[in-house]
Each structure stands twice: as C-alpha cells, then as structure tokens.
C-alpha cells in the first residue's frame, strides 16, 4: 500500500504514525529522528518542547481516479482565488501555491 507524507498539528497525530522528517524544536535541535514510530510519551515530549507541526507518513488509500479529481479541484480553486489583479510577485506566489497543492494532492 502506498503512503504519502503530510504535516499535522501534534494534536492530530496518532500513536503508531512514523516520522517522515526529523522533529525539531524551535532552535533547530533534533528531538526525534526520521522514521521514529511515535508513541504517546514521545508525542507528549514533542508537545512540551513547543513543536507545532510534525511530518508523518499516512497510508494512502485513494485510487488514481480520486487523486485526479482532487488535483483538478485543487487547481481550479487556486485559479479562482487568484482571479483579478496580477504582477510578477503575485504570479510567483500563485505558481508556488499551485506547485504545493499539486505536490500535496498527489
């Protein structure tokens, strides 16, 4: 089964999930290494160290059709919210958002 990487607030992370990137504190010190399978005491520790976002692996149960549909919807939404005025900086932001949505939807 495929997995994908998502970023979650600590309160959304369930024990048993594996870290897709090292968990670091605000000073950039590594608290837990990539691949660590999280248990409740580790999650508690990350909370106490002020970690606000954690990258974990999530099982991906979507089929190709669902992914294509989600991708199409995400791209249409980006085009909608970026309607109207333009300029190089806004265009660069739009491209960055579009790239991000494509990457996280796939």
């Amino acid at each position: 089964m495929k997995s994908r990487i998502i970023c979650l607030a600590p309160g959304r992370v369930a024990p048993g999930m594996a870290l897709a990137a090292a968990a670091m504190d605000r000073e950039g010190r590594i608290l837990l290494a990539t691949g660590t399978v999280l248990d409740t005491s580790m999650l508690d520790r990350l909370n106490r160290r002020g970690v606000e976002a954690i990258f974990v692996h999530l099982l991906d149960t979507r089929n190709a059709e669902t992914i294509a549909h989600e991708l199409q919807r995400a791209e249409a939404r980006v085009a909608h919210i970026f309607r109207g005025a333009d300029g190089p900086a806004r265009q660069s932001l739009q491209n960055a958002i579009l790239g991000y949505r494509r990457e996280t939807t796939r």
Partner: protein
Amino acid sequence: MMPPSLGQLMAHADALPSLPEIVHHLMSTLKDEGADVDTLAHHINADPAIVARLLAAANSSAFGVNTRIDSARQAFYYLGVNRVVNIIMATALIQRFDTRTADFDARLLWRHTMGVATCARVLAEEIDYDPEIAFTAGLLHDIGQVLMFTAAPNDYAHVLELRQKDDSSILSAEIEVFGYDHTAAGSLLAREWKLPWEIIEAIAAHHDPDSYNNTGSQLGDLIHLAEVLSHALDIGEQPNNRVPDLSERACANLGVSWPTFAGRFAEIEARYDGIRIALGI
C-alpha cells in the same frame, strides 16, 4: 443616517470593551527576553476569566498534553511562555469582541486573523524578525473592521454586501460606504490603546505598505505579506476568497522568494490548524 466619521468612530471606541490589563502587560514584556514566569503568572491570575480560557485551551486536544494543566504557572511550564502569551492574547480578543449576527460573524474574521498571525510568525522566523511581535500584529491587524461593525452594524453590513455583489476588495467597499477603511480605523484604535508604534504602523500598512515605507520598520511589509499569503493558502476557505494585490517592493525588501518559502507552507497550515482547534474557532 450617515455612517460615523472617523472622529465619531473614535468617540465610539470609548464604549468598546477595552483590552484586558494583562494583554497590555504581556505586550510590554514581548521584547523582554528574561520575562519572569512567576511575575507573568501572578498578573494572569488577577483575571479569573483569562485563567479559565487559558486552561480550557491548554487542556484541549490540540496540545495533547497528557498531564492535566490546572494553573497558569503549569501552563507556562508545559507549553512555554510564547504559546501561553499567544493563547491569552487570542482568547482575550475573541472574547471581548464576540460579535455574531446574520451579517457579520466575528468567528470568520478571527479565523482569518489567526491565519495571518500564523503566516506572520513563520515569515518572521524566516527573515529573523521577532516572531512574537509579528504574531501579535497579525492578531490585531483587522481590529478596525470590528470597531467599524460595532459602531455602525447596518453600514458595515452594506460594505459586506457591496463586496459580495461587485467582487471588490473590502477596502474599496469600506471607502464607498464610510469614506475611510479599516486600516485607518484600526491604526487609530491601536494608538488609543497605546500599542507599540510598529504595530500601529503595521495595522495601517497591511493592505498598502508602499505608502508607509518611511519609518524603516519591516513589520508593515511583513504583515502585508502574511495577509496575502493567508489568502493564497485559502486559510478559512471563504467562498468569495480572493488573493489581494501583492507589493513587489515589500517582497524584495524582506528578501522573500516564494519558490523557496513554499517549503514552509505545509507547516503553516498545520500550525494554524493547531491554534484554531485550541481556540475553538
């Protein structure tokens, strides 16, 4: 009846519930690296309503702390000073300005506000600006909208209608109805509250920072970028969301490159999600 002039609006500000004393105190400690936890906890304990809301947020699932937190001091210990300060400021603002009518749902505004505050904090971390000041300015940047709605609810409902009907910016709709916009109203209110000048300026500058680039503070540019980014990330997912104009100069001034900064978008969304759950908005 005519909408209130800016002067009349400020007269109305006296009738607004003022910011709790503790918020002023916390703002004065924002730049104090060695802020003493016992002193802060002592000040917080003077306002039982604040303590109650702090503990409710601190014990919410967003923080997932196994140990139950029963005091302000414990909250500082488990969550750290910064997060406690942010929770207190956010809950104080939401509670003091809890407006919900058919025309204006303050919860939607607070979601946007928390989104901008989160973007501001992460942008500040990226460019080595003080993240606490950035977060606070994000929390307060749209306070002018709340003041205008509170003073003239029918006129402000008309603003929202106009924006919806014409798909125009909130600023142009406000100017059409009131003759001024929420950046002017908000910065005057912030002055009335004697907030730090960088924050007053950021409230004034967040939609049009190019007109406020004289004093050398980066905060106006930073809140402008945070405002645009929160719309671009669709935080709050308002159906009529539209990404506002983005100042080329502000991006260049802060040295923000969007392709590079995109590496932090996922983190911003997760951090916003945690705050939203903790505050119940």
